[in-house]
């Protein structure tokens, strides 16, 4: 498992979302105050796509992260996760409550409500995906994830990378993005911060209620001008929220 690490200070473990890891301005901001360890979800590392076949299910993934904590030699880092990664962060924290010092979740997955269905981002028309992840599908953050069509080589490479990352992560989510976290999340006792883009078009912000109901120490901050990836569209503000929370 490849891990990108940067920064000084207390340890933070960052769990990326369904579109793979890119070292972005948000992580740079965090790295000014923390030692950020950002693992690449198995299969999403460039040159090692078949690593995903080592894991058959969610339990394999949780155990994989527990072993990673051992390998990194960090006792109880703060967990920060986005989307799918936030769900995984909850699962690891629920399995090993002693290993997470604090937990920050950005537009997390993990629950399902029939009345507020989560959009299946894996089955959107490719042209619709940026508008579902980002509040502004033409903004800089969206263009970093989806290179515009005038550079065909970069566009095709990005399409392969994103499609493969969605498959490698989607393996642990679909057919319904609820794998029973509601039965385990009560084991997480540490303070938890939820950050949610007000204009999240994939996982509606009402899902914050599901987390708050089950996490005694949870508090929610919603973000203006942000969709499903507020840390990419508003990196400085989200980094400040996370930093303030983790420094308390």
């Amino acid at each position, binding site marked *: 498992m490849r891990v990108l690490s940067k920064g000084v200070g207390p340890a933070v473990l960052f769990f990326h979302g369904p579109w793979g890891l890119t070292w972005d301005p948000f992580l740079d901001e965090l790295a000014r105050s923390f030692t950020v360890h950002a693992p690449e979800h198995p299969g999403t590392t460039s040159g090692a*796509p*078949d690593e995903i076949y080592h894991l058959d299910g969610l339990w394999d993934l949780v155990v994989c992260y527990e072993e990673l904590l051992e390998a990194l030699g960090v006792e109880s880092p703060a967990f920060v996760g986005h989307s799918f990664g936030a769900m995984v962060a909850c699962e690891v924290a629920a399995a090993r409550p002693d290993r997470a010092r604090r937990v920050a979740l950005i537009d997390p997955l993990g629950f399902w409500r029939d009345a507020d269905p989560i959009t299946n981002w*894996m*089955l*959107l*028309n*490719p*042209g619709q995906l940026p508008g579902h992840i980002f509040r502004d599908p033409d903004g800089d953050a969206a263009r970093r994830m989806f290179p515009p069509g005038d550079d065909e080589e970069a566009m*095709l490479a990005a*399409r*392969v990378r994103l*499609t*493969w*990352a*969605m*498959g490698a992560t*989607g*393996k642990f989510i679909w057919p319904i993005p609820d794998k029973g976290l509601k039965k385990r999340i009560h084991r997480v006792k540490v303070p938890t911060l939820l950050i949610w883009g007000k204009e999240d078009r994939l996982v509606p912000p009402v899902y914050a209620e599901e987390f708050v109901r089950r996490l005694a120490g949870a508090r929610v901050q919603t973000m203006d001008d942000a969709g499903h990836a507020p840390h990419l569209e508003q990196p400085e503000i989200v980094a400040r929220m996370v930093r303030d929370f983790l420094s308390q």
Partner: protein
Amino acid sequence: MMDRYWEVVSEKGREANPYRGGFLQLVAVSETDTRAEDEYARHVEYFYHKCLHVPAQWFSPPGNQDYRSLVATTSNPVRRAENPKNLRYRDFVEKGYVIAGSPATVRDRLKEDVVRGLRVGNLMVLLQIGSMPHELALKNIDLFAREVLPHLRDTWDDEGWVNHWWPQGLRGATPQRAAVGRRP
């Protein structure tokens, strides 16, 4: 497409047994070529004009392909040289999208262009096409089974190939009775 397949078979040092290959072909048989056009044209056009739309997100949803296939299809997508929506029945017949006409026309073209041309031992035929109604589909199946199929079955016999991929009990059991039976 099949040429490349047989190249690979040869490169791998395998015998060129035609029963390694299979091909799906749309077929429409009637009493005469003219009659085939009268009966089948609108159903063939319906199929190629209306039934082949696949939304972009269904071409390759995540998890559908292994990594090498994903890279290959993304960098080298299947692009049709022509849009079938611009073609009519006679174009489809001429270009071989569908092999249609009298029994003689159909068996000659199938034998030369498809079975021998592509070297396929396993010919799959699609006989219900597009909006074709039940009775017409039955007629197509019946004419194909009686007037065309018996003339194709022995195509590879003179070369002595064995179809190792077919259940042993059925090999060589050419159902001649169906070919000589009377049409109900």
